[in-house]
């Protein structure tokens, strides 16, 4: 049940992390965190949403200008204007997100599954024409029909996407559900899968490890687990757990975890809970 070799983390502190209510990072803070993430060995950073406006785009251009080894990704809805904003910033790695659960499709978009597929094709055609690296996000996959997710992934693959994000958007999975579900879809999916967990019941890290064991190749994380509502899977917990439980080094140096968490705690004005796993003061002395 070991995860596939090559399992990598995608840091989304600047996108899903900053989206948590009340958090705003300055450009300088993002630059400092991006450099620190890069030095720690993070290979992918979801840098933000260019469609948010001119100021955000200026920040993103500053990040793109940094001499980083990591790949910066722009997050987009499957709307042409959003994608054009990302292209004009200079991004060469573009993420396109659309929901795949019937709940989201019918009640949020007021559309149907066929519309979702068409919208995905239209968006991907545009990105493909610019020769960008494409990643696709399937919002609310945990509450979606697996066969529709697989069909969605097939379309993404046909139009050049390099991976598909399986999002547990509301954090409604436990590790056993995650393992069973992903073990099934990993075998049948035409693209490598990225697991994106949320922490509504405190299970995001455990679910991410279950996804690793089920054979997914990527996982979304944020520094100190910052993110919408109760947050995302925490980079520190996932990195430390991968090494502790599976002896797997994902390329991120554990010795950087404490200082990375301190950076985000300061920038978000959210001091680290002393009892926080890995980086809280009660645990840090034990394992870092």
């Amino acid at each position, binding site marked *: 049940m070991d995860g596939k070799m090559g399992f990598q983390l995608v840091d989304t502190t600047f996108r899903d992390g900053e*989206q948590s*209510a009340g958090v705003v990072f300055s450009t300088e803070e993002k630059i400092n965190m991006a450099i620190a993430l890069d030095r720690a060995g993070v290979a992918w950073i979801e840098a933000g949403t260019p469609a*948010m406006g001119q100021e955000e785009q200026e920040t993103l251009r500053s990040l793109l200008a940094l001499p980083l080894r990591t790949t910066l990704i722009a997050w987009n809805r499957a709307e042409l204007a959003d994608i054009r904003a990302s292209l004009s910033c200079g991004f060469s790695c573009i993420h396109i997100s659309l929901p795949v659960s019937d709940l989201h499709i019918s009640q949020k978009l007021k559309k149907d599954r066929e519309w979702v597929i068409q919208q995905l094709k239209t968006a991907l055609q545009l990105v493909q024409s610019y020769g960008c690296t494409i990643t696709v996000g399937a919002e609310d996959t945990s509450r979606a029909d697996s066969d529709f997710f697989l069909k969605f992934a097939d379309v993404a693959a046909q139009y050049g996407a390099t991976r598909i994000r399986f999002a547990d958007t509301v954090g409604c999975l436990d590790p*056993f559900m995650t393992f069973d579900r992903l073990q099934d879809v990993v075998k049948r999916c035409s693209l490598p899968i990225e697991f994106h967990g949320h922490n509504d019941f*405190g299970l995001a890290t455990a679910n991410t490890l279950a996804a690793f064991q089920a054979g997914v190749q990527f996982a979304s994380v944020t520094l100190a687990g910052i993110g919408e509502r*109760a947050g995302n899977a925490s980079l520190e917990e996932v990195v*430390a757990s991968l090494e502790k439980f599976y002896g797997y080094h994902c390329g991120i140096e554990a010795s950087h975890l404490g200082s990375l968490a301190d950076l985000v705690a300061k920038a978000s004005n959210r001091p680290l809970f002393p009892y926080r796993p890995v980086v809280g003061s009660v645990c840090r002395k034990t394992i870092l």
Partner: protein
Amino acid sequence: MRQMVMVSDQTINEALRLGTSMAAIELMIPILKKYGIANFDVSLDYLPSDGVPKQLLLHPLLRCKIHSSLDEIAKVRQMGFSKVILSWFHQPSQSSLDQLTEALTAAQEFAQEIYLCIENAEELTIPELTSYWSLLSRYRVKRFIYQDVRSSLEPLGVCRKLESLQQTVPCPIEFHGHNTYGLATANSLAALRSGVQYVAAAVSGIGSPNHAAMEEVLMAVKHLWKQDQVPSGSSLTADCIEILSYMGISLPVDKALIGRDVFAHESGIHVDGITKNPLLYEVIQPEEVGQTRQLIIGKHSGTASLKIKFLQWNLELDQAEALELLEKVRRLASVQKRPLSDLELHQLYWRRNQMDQSQLG
């Protein structure tokens, strides 16, 4: 998998470790009792040297955890405890269990209930663990506590190991996980899934080393596994905050289920969705844990959020107005590095309208 979930509380023990007053601890106990607490565990190490109030000592759910030594057994006997957890750290080099046997014999003389806890149970092989089974039977140990003191387990492993052990162990198992790697809640769920009924937990996972978060375990069972015998969570947030306040502990704003901001929505996409149907972005309704939904206006807001916010004040924004205001909102939020208060939002809106009026005039 339909079963009761009983919690061995570790919150009171952390309160003792932190030096919280006995008066405050006595206030905490009835609040915790609302949540399926089977026992309150206290370590002899943390009990105050100037004596424990009789009322607390005689509490029917109190268990005292001691190292398996005759000296400590004599102390708890003298103090008047009737429920004792003998804690034991298995070492491969130690061939004899004489010390533990002596301790069990001494405990049997006075204790109404004896529990045996192997702190590093996870590190033991099945034959090593099985070697304790005869002691459990001989001394009528009420439950065997399988502790993972070094946080060495992940959920799939917990389930596998405990399923296997339950086939041979002569008494019920209790699982005591720790949270150094962020897996204690998941590990406790895994233990419950394996058929174990008793798990150790503390409010918000506090403790040194830290534990599974009581509220996460209970609400995951209730809402993810749809088990309705778990206590109601409608006063959960207030109860947890009150308990922690007696210890001077403030919760992180994003603490799962009970943090101040876990039902606060700012990003445009989320607010738009929540307005159409809260289930789109909330796994449970905030009322189910005693919280309320909040709409935050900040850097990640969209025009839909602004329209909704202003409609709450009976002001209708058209798309052009919302777009214009949104740009100012985002700029101000970025400059002040926080969301806008209602007052600041009002000021932005009225200042713009006053400018329009003066330009018209």
